[in-house]
């Protein structure tokens, strides 16, 4: 132990941003500080002095950095200062509440071999978060003095200065516990150190230089290259080339070290769920219960839709659609018959019927919006992915597919996040099988017309769709992908109370885009359908529509569907909601005042209706989705395949349903 008489001690203050380094610096140096620039740089330099125990401390505030790599001027300045100026002590300020991050810089500082004192700041914040840091344990583990501090309250400063003095003057017992490089790379490090050792400039620690070269540090590599004979450099380069992942090995060693330190010295309040989020997630992300919860939430959504939505829809149908129809009839009483028919049968019954979706969509969007805002959607996505994983389908594809629940078009476009072209293709082909809100709305409209338990039916159809999706995915996976595997890490955000403002805006946006769609595409199609169902003869039976429908009649009759239902199915190619609009036009043209629901029930048996709904769910994608597929796959081959594939799937599904339903005596 050497005792040195000193008048002044040179101290460098290091630390990551947001650890309270500036507070410490200001408290130490007060008015004595002067601000300038680091020589030759635009980075600010602060330095000052501090008097303590008849000693002068010359304090330099190093730029705040997360590490000491060569990636930023601040980091280069910090490490160059330590290497060249060789301060007597480096004080590293760390944040007690985020030790896992703060200690990274300490790991780098220890590798430089400079005398270190740790200022364990923000103890108060750590305590607030329920963390207890055992300072003595940390000190023993690190092998370096650790001083607990609360800089904002001026606590711990004197002890800090005292420990700095100890280290500088008394050469106190100092045995730092440095991080090790990962075992399998230790030899490599030694090799490099042996090769370059004699060429390292005096002020640089040889082991540190070897470490940096292994890490691929640009500045050090540039420094050493000209100093090494060609042969030696080549040997070094070879070694680096053989160990591409050396930088990970180096960083890995630091993280293992940090984990050991934290495990030793940090006491967390409790093991297991500590927050509400954790407690809820025990269930929400459980392999079994998570799925059950998801399924239950979907069931509740449907139940709500029918409990609230259907009655409202009926009201809208009777009063708005019916009312508008009567209004139009009275206003246009003297107009030509075709105009009246155009307006009432075409526009009002077509678009109007779709607009009665409003209550249903409102409820869907509201539930979706709340689940999103509360943070549940991430759990739902996670659960679905794990479930798909069990089925053999996994990876990045689930995210774009999940978008499909709103609309298939973003699901197709969202497949861009999938890198592998094959997996992307599989995602795109399977996306149309995700039941979109438009299709669900059609079900919501038709199910109550035919069935006493529309919730069960909807839920069953949804399950059917997802099952077909999984099966199709498995099949295509086998054929196209040959079982490629992709992995994800996912962050589950905290649950939080819903922000009604955000949710309301979301619902509004979605409803408005629906209205826009209704006002343009659906109106257009309704009028076209109306036109096709009028001309050339003037009655439904003699129209073009009828002749097209009759051509499809043979297929339809296999499932108990008449030509009008087939035409409705076809029209869903333009937009899924059109199925309802078309039914509105075609079935609303009856002589009697009976509503469309009654007319439908008269024309279609329940088993045929079920077959229709199944076909509707599995049918070819709407034209928007098909064009999205064309766009994303840059060819007509795949959209054609998708259309053909789904045509077959839906026909098979419809037939099977009809037969099975008849078998079970559905009628």
């Amino acid at each position, binding site marked *: 132990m050497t005792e040195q008489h000193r008048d002044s001690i040179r101290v460098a203050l290091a630390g990551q941003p947001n650890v309270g380094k500036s507070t410490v610096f200001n408290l130490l140096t007060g008015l004595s500080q002067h601000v300038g620039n680091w020589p030759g740089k635009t980075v600010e330099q602060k330095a000052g002095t501090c008097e303590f125990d008849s000693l002068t401390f010359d304090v330099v505030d190093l730029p705040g950095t997360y590490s000491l790599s060569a990636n930023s001027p601040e980091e280069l300045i910090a490490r160059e200062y330590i290497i060249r100026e060789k301060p007597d002590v480096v004080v590293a300020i760390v944040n007690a509440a985020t030790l896992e991050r703060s200690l990274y810089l300490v790991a780098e500082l220890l590798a430089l071999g400079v005398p270190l004192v740790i200022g364990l700041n923000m103890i108060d914040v750590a305590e607030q978060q329920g963390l207890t840091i055992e300072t003595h344990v940390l000190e023993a583990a690190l092998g370096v003095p650790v001083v607990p501090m609360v800089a904002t309250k001026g606590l711990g400063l004197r002890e800090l200065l005292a420990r700095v003095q100890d280290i500088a003057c008394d050469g106190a017992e100092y045995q730092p516990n440095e991080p090790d490089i990962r075992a399998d790379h230790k030899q490599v490090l030694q090799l490099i150190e042996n090769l370059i050792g004699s060429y390292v400039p005096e002020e640089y620690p040889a082991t540190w230089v070897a470490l940096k070269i292994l890490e691929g540090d640009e500045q050090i590599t540039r420094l050493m290259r000209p100093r090494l004979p060609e042969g030696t450099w080549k040997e070094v380069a070879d070694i680096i080339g053989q160990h591409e992942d050396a930088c990970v090995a180096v960083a890995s060693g630091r993280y293992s070290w940090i984990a050991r330190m934290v495990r030793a010295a940090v006491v967390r309040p409790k093991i297991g769920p500590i927050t509400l989020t954790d407690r809820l997630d025990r269930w929400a992300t459980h392999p079994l219960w998570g799925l059950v919860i998801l399924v239950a939430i979907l069931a509740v959504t449907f139940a709500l839709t029918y409990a609230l939505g259907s009655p409202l829809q009926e009201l809208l149908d009777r009063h708005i659609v019916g009312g508008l129809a009567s209004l139009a009839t009275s206003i246009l009483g003297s107009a030509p018959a075709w105009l009246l028919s155009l307006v009432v049968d075409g526009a009002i019954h077509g678009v109007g019927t779709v607009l009665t979706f409003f209550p249903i969509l409102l409820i869907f969007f509201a539930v979706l919006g709340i689940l999103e805002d509360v943070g549940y959607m991430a759990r739902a996505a996670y659960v679905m992915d794990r479930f798909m994983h069990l089925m053999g389908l996994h990876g990045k594809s689930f995210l774009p597919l999940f978008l*499909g629940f709103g609309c298939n078009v973003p699901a197709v476009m969202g497949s861009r996040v999938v890198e592998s072209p094959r997996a992307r293709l599989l995602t795109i082909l399977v996306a149309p099988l995700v039941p979109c809100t438009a299709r669900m709305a059609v079900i919501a409209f038709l199910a109550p017309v035919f069935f006493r338990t529309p919730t069960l039916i909807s839920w069953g159809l949804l399950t059917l769709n997802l099952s077909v999706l999984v099966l199709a995915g498995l099949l295509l996976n086998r054929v196209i992908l040959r079982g490629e595997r992709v992995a*994800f890490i996912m962050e589950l955000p905290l649950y939080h109370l819903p922000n009604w403002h955000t949710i309301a805006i979301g619902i509004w946006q*979605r409803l408005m885009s629906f209205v826009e769609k209704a006002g343009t595409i659906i109106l257009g199609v309704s009028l076209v359908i109306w036109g096709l169902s009028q001309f050339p003869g003037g009655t439904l039976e003699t129209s073009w529509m009828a002749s097209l429908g009759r051509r499809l009649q043979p297929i339809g009759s296999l499932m108990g569907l008449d030509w009008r239902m087939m035409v409705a199915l076809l029209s869903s190619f333009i937009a899924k909601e059109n199925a309802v609009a078309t039914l509105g036009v075609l079935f609303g043209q009856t002589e009697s005042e009976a509503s469309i629901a009654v007319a439908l029930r008269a024309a279609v048996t329940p088993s045929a209706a079920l077959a229709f709904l199944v076909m509707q769910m599995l049918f070819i994608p709407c034209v928007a989705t098909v064009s999205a597929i064309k766009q994303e796959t840059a060819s007509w081959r795949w959209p054609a395949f998708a259309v053909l594939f789904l045509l077959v799937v839906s026909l098979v599904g419809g037939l099977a349903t009809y037969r099975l339903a008849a078998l079970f005596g559905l009628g």
Partner: protein
Amino acid sequence: MLFDLLEMLRCGGTHTLKDMARQLDVSELLVQSMIDELVRLGYLKLTAQACAGSCEGCPVAGCCAVGSEGRLWTLTEVGRRALQTQES
């Protein structure tokens, strides 16, 4: 430690930060730091980052079912190769 994290991604599937923290017997904060490091080193990358919180400017916001705030990372080509090297 970093390779242990990458190793967990070998068999595919989705892992939450919490799962990984539990398996590695470290805090979630450390897992987060390690993920950031692996991103910096080019072994991992953020995927659906574009989706997180930018619904206002998105053209399909009107019909999107997901607006989740959670970030999603996946292996890069470099990361995948590293895992393969580990295998041999």
